């Protein structure tokens, strides 16, 4: 069974390469079929814009960091190669290598400050860099740099007279970018990038170093953009101006190609370019003199239609339609009920060793003391419940423990080493896993792929991670859902998947944020069984809950928080009888009433 699955996975991987080879072959054939010079130009443009869209797709499609300034690398590629020809007489073939190096360095220099910004702010900040380059180029006196004619060595200087040569050169750039995209898609980095795109916090908590991954993606997307810029100048423009290579038209063309075709897949920009570039070129030559700017109108209209009818792009829309049809045809297989693992309360009893120490932790937000001077220990292999009424500071405590927040005072020590001030991904790699109150899934990855993101903390090879993820899924009894997408899962399955993803990081201690919330009675029983089995494997468990009933069945000890303070600690039966705890939950007057009744 497992071997068969591995074979399937390998076949699927091979299919991807075959498809790329087919695209390249089709490109070659087209370049020989096409006769007119103008048609060759359109073909070259399709290949180049597809490659540019793919370059953008690496950082913005896979990693989800929308870059509105990607032409900065395109422009660097163009300027560096042309200036090297003009100033040093260096062949653009060599100049391109230098251009790629400069672009990658620029990516690092831009990325270091800019990745501090998240979401739309990152995108807005990227707008600034091409503007800066335009001004710098003007200031340096490079308002217009023409490529000098090199009649004696046209090939060496990328000055082909035969237009087919440019087709094939652009196709080679496209093929290389497709291959690079394919390698990223199927690698550990690809999974991590998609995890970051879909939920950066969850990815961090699963051990993904988001800054490093985003930086890697940015560097990898800068390189092809620089090559495209270099080739574009030699094939189409012949003269570099700041406006032509750093201008908004470059990035808008890139965005149109990628957004129309679909982002997050290597087929998207390809489809987008194959569709949009010829349409706009044809319109431009047929009615362009009567309706100047028709290109822009068409692009605008295409973007509006796409946003309305296929917001994820054509590729995903078509794929979804095909899948839906296939699903209608196939009969949904009946699913066996999740079998709760045998409950063996004695398995893996807690030891006296302290795994996690919380010492005097305080954290406040504007005007609100969320945690004040909280201290407690977590012992190896125990199930510790953290309870408290609304606003007690439970989730804040977890955020401090796993590194999302840094406390103002106090210290957390994990396995005897300081754990405050480390990123969630670093703590995850040290063996501290967590789940979230509302399951944070990566919705476009299958259940298995979601869990693989966790497994990549320990494994760098995809097959190893896949095997680890399968065993984590088996552990929580979710193997039969491996290929489903999270959107169709029940709450119980989602929580089990999140737990499996956390277990795939091979943690010593897991922080579970309300794993029982929203579950039915049967679901609670299943979850409790799974959590016990996790402990039986030697993993220490800390659980936040406010449904006290279930915790009474599950926890060895309870820590009670109220208004950010530790109110009580001890065995469950003892804690729930504690007047201080009753007061925190039901108020002083209830306590007085009950006391009066008892007398």
């Amino acid at each position: 069974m497992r071997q068969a699955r591995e074979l399937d996975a390998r076949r699927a991987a091979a299919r991807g390469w075959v498809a790329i080879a087919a695209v390249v072959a089709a490109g070659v054939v087209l370049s020989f079929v096409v006769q007119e010079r103008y048609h060759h130009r359109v073909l070259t443009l399709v290949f180049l814009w597809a490659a540019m869209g793919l370059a953008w797709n690496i950082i913005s499609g896979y990693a989800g960091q929308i870059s509105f300034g990607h032409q900065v690398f395109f422009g660097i590629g163009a300027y560096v190669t042309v200036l090297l020809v003009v100033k040093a007489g260096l062949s653009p073939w060599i100049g391109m290598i230098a251009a790629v190096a400069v672009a990658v360095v620029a990516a690092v220099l831009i990325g270091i400050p800019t990745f501090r910004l998240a979401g739309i702010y990152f995108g807005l900040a990227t707008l600034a860099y091409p503007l800066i380059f335009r001004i710098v180029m003007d200031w340096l006196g490079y308002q217009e740099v023409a490529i000098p004619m090199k009649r004696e060595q046209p090939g060496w200087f990328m000055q082909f007279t035969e237009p087919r040569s440019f087709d094939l050169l652009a196709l080679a750039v496209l093929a290389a970018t497709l291959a690079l995209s394919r390698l990223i898609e199927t690698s550990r980095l690809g999974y991590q990038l998609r995890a970051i795109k879909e939920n950066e916090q969850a990815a961090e908590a699963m051990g993904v170093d988001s800054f490093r991954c985003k930086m890697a993606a940015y560097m990898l997307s800068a390189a092809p953009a620089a090559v495209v810029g270099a080739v574009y100048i030699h094939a189409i423009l012949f003269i570099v101006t700041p406006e032509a290579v750093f201008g908004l038209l470059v990035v808008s063309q890139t965005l149109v190609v990628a957004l129309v075709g679909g982002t997050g897949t290597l087929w998207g920009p390809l489809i987008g370019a194959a569709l949009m570039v010829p349409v706009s070129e044809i319109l431009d030559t047929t009615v362009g003199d009567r309706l100047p700017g028709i290109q822009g109108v068409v692009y605008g209209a295409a973007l509006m239609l796409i946003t309305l009818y296929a917001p994820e792009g054509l590729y995903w829309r078509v794929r979804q339609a095909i899948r839906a049809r296939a699903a209608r045809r196939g009969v949904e297989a009946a699913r066996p009920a999740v079998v709760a693992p045998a409950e063996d309360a004695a398995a893996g009893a807690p030891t006296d060793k302290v795994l996690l120490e919380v010492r005097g932790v305080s954290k406040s937000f504007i005007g609100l003391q969320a945690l004040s001077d909280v201290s407690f220990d977590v012992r190896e292999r125990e199930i510790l419940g953290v309870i408290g009424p609304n606003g007690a500071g439970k989730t804040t405590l977890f955020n401090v423990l796993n590194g999302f927040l840094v406390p103002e005072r106090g210290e957390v020590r994990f396995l005897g080493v300081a754990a405050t001030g480390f990123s969630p991904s670093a703590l995850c790699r040290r063996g501290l896993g967590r789940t979230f109150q509302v399951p944070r899934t990566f919705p476009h990855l299958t259940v298995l792929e979601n869990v693989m993101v966790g497994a990549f903390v320990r494994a760098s090879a995809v097959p190893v991670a896949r095997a680890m993820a399968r065993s984590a899924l088996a552990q929580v009894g979710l193997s039969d859902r491996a290929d489903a997408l999270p959107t169709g899962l029940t709450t119980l399955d989602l929580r089990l998947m999140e737990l499996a993803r956390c277990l795939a990081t091979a943690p010593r201690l897991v922080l579970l944020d309300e794993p029982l919330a929203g579950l039915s009675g049967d679901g609670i029983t299943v979850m409790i069984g799974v959590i016990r089995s996790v402990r039986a494997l030697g993993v220490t468990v800390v659980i936040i809950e406010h449904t006290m009933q279930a915790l009474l069945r599950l926890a060895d000890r309870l820590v009670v928080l109220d208004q950010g303070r530790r109110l009580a600690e001890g065995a469950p039966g003892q804690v729930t009888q504690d007047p201080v705890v009753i007061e925190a939950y039901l108020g002083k007057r209830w306590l007085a009433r009950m006391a009066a009744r008892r007398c």
Partner: protein
Amino acid sequence: MLTITGLGVSYEGLHALTEVSLEVGEGEFVTIVGPNGAGKTTLLKAISGSVTAQAGRILYRGGDLGALRPSDRAALGIAHVPEGRRVFPSLTVRENLELGSYRRAARAGRASSLEEVLALFPILRERHGQLAGSLSGGEQQMLALGRGLMARPDLLLLDEPSQGLGPRIVEQIFETIDRIRRERRLTILLVEQRVVEALELCDRGYVLETGRVVLAGARDALLADARVQRAYLGAGA
């Protein structure tokens, strides 16, 4: 006046309410208590229409509310004073109140409603030109209550008016609610975590726990029932 049968609400797969049935009579004061996460807020939202129920029926004066939008329900006289107050911070106290009488039937009597509300909350008269965002938490809660009353509702839904307030202010708020009820003869459905204070105000109460009604009864019976505590602290208590 309000009859809920078999109400079920779940969002993003979480079951917030399961098979909830309850009744509120004309002129009655009903309190719902229960721990955090019991589904109290969801219940009020289902009545006022800001969440959609997947199962069950909500009958208001014999008519099914199911298909009606929140604004239609407000027009029928249901006012929801939401959790966390939700005043419009950049509008003045007076503007906040006036927005409360947006309902067509209430618009005509806006001036007299305003006068009545200001009489009920003297502090709002003092602060009527001030921005709502600059009020203290207690004053904002008064404003939210006042805004709810401006609609001249027949059924007032109150979601945790005590949330985040100090004990003295909570006492004041509860006193005001009691006064509103006596003077206006409104039907009130109050949701609270503060068990004793909230139950003392009501005629009847329900205890909600993890989305189900686990206990129902008259005020005094509930106040003497140790099982209320169990909803909060589990079977061990």
